[in-house]
């Protein structure tokens, strides 16, 4: 059983090492995307006219294929992990902005007035009232961004073996070892499902007021925002 997970030495990593690398390459960009998206989304909420152009720019950015994105960056960042991570960060930013904007906008007027009446300033109101209410929408975005990011890292293999688990694909082809290819595909899929499950768990922990026990993921996703707005749309975009 143990030799099943043996790696060719040119990968310079154990299987678990590759898994760790894969998680880092996939999730750090998502985090970066979220950090950038929060202020951008807040600006879009504040200045209504800003939202349509921002949506346009993000749609166009999202249309740029990952491989093309990677390749153009090689000139600046070389064949390194960063080259893989920058496009992933941009894609997750694109997913987050509409999710957060719609989440924050969905906070009822009365709730905001109540918070103001209780003496909350704009910052405290944003952090303590708007963000928690937007949390389900943000988590829906997090799930989509993380899962597609995990799937996309593999393509990094094409630019100088920077694809973590994806590098196994190349080794599998060169050494004619289907086992390595299986390890890569199944490993990536399992990783995506596990991360998704962790995010669902986190959301349940962080939003105790939301109904739970309906079980199915679909309920959680659509229940987050009953009417499908543009956010729900953006969230449909699967892995590229």
């Amino acid at each position, binding site marked *: 059983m143990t030799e099943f997970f043996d790696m060719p030495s040119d990968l310079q990593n154990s299987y678990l090492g590759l898994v760790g690398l894969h998680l880092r390459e996939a999730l750090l960009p998502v985090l970066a995307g979220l950090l950038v998206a929060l202020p951008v989304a807040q600006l879009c909420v504040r200045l209504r006219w800003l939202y349509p152009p921002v949506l346009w720019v993000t749609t166009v950015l999202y249309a740029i294929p990952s491989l093309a994105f990677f390749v153009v960056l090689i000139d600046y960042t070389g064949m390194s992990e960063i080259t893989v991570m920058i496009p992933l960060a941009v894609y997750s930013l694109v997913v987050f902005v509409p999710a957060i904007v719609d989440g924050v906008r969905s906070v009822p007027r009365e709730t905001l007035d109540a918070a103001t009446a209780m003496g909350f300033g704009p910052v405290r109101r944003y952090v303590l009232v708007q963000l928690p209410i937007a949390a389900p929408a943000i988590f829906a975005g997090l799930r989509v961004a993380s899962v597609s990011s995990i799937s996309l890292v593999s393509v990094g293999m094409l630019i100088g073996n920077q694809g973590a688990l994806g590098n196994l694909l190349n080794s599998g082809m060169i050494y004619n070892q289907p086992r390595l290819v299986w390890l890569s595909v199944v490993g990536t899929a399992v990783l995506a499902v596990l991360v998704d499950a962790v995010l669902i768990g986190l959301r349940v922990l962080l939003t105790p007021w939301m109904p739970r026990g309906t079980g199915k993921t679909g309920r959680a996703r659509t229940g987050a925002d009953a009417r499908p707005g543009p956010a729900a*749309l953006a969230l449909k975009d699967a892995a590229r």
Partner: protein
Amino acid sequence: MNVLNFVDAFFSDSAHWQGYDGIPTRVLEHIQYTLMALGIAAAVGLPVGLLTGHTGRGGNTLALIATAGRALPSFGLMVLLFVLLGLGMAPVMIPLVVLAVPPILVTTYEAMRSVDPAPVDAARGMGMAEAEVLFRVELPVALPLILSGLRSAAIQIVSTATIAAYVSFGGLGRYIVDGLYQRDYEKVVGGATLVAVMALTTLAVFWAVGRLTVSRGVRRSG
């Protein structure tokens, strides 16, 4: 040297515009893969999405399928099928279809669900048959959302068809993969630019299709 120089050099070299490895050939190949995969995915996703959306059953199952489809790495899946099945169209088409079906399926379902129930009831009250209700009332209202699902599927196919070159297929990925092996950076960047332009063209095509097919009344309210 920057990217723009490479782009300029690639496109001004007349050798890149003709023959077996010329830009027109590769673009046509790419369009061919895209249309084929999109066609199959739409043939699978649209009817199922319309029916489940119309009846309102199976939403949870669809969401599960979408999550599962998203979790499967298309690039890995393609290499795996290539190793298992050998050279052929199937290893390229299957991952592209697997990639494109979930967005079509889920958006179509959600689009049908989000149709205002009042006009649907009115149509039934006027004695329309179920099929008429579906095609003449629900579908036109749901069309913009359905198109957006098809659009994201199409864009994903365009960008993912690039990796087909890795398993010795043609298309625009050929320039990127070959260029990387030959350390011909001009070719790589040229290929990447072509793919990006094609993805943006897809956006434009869908915008135009939306203008032409979505009824004016629906557009105004949306």
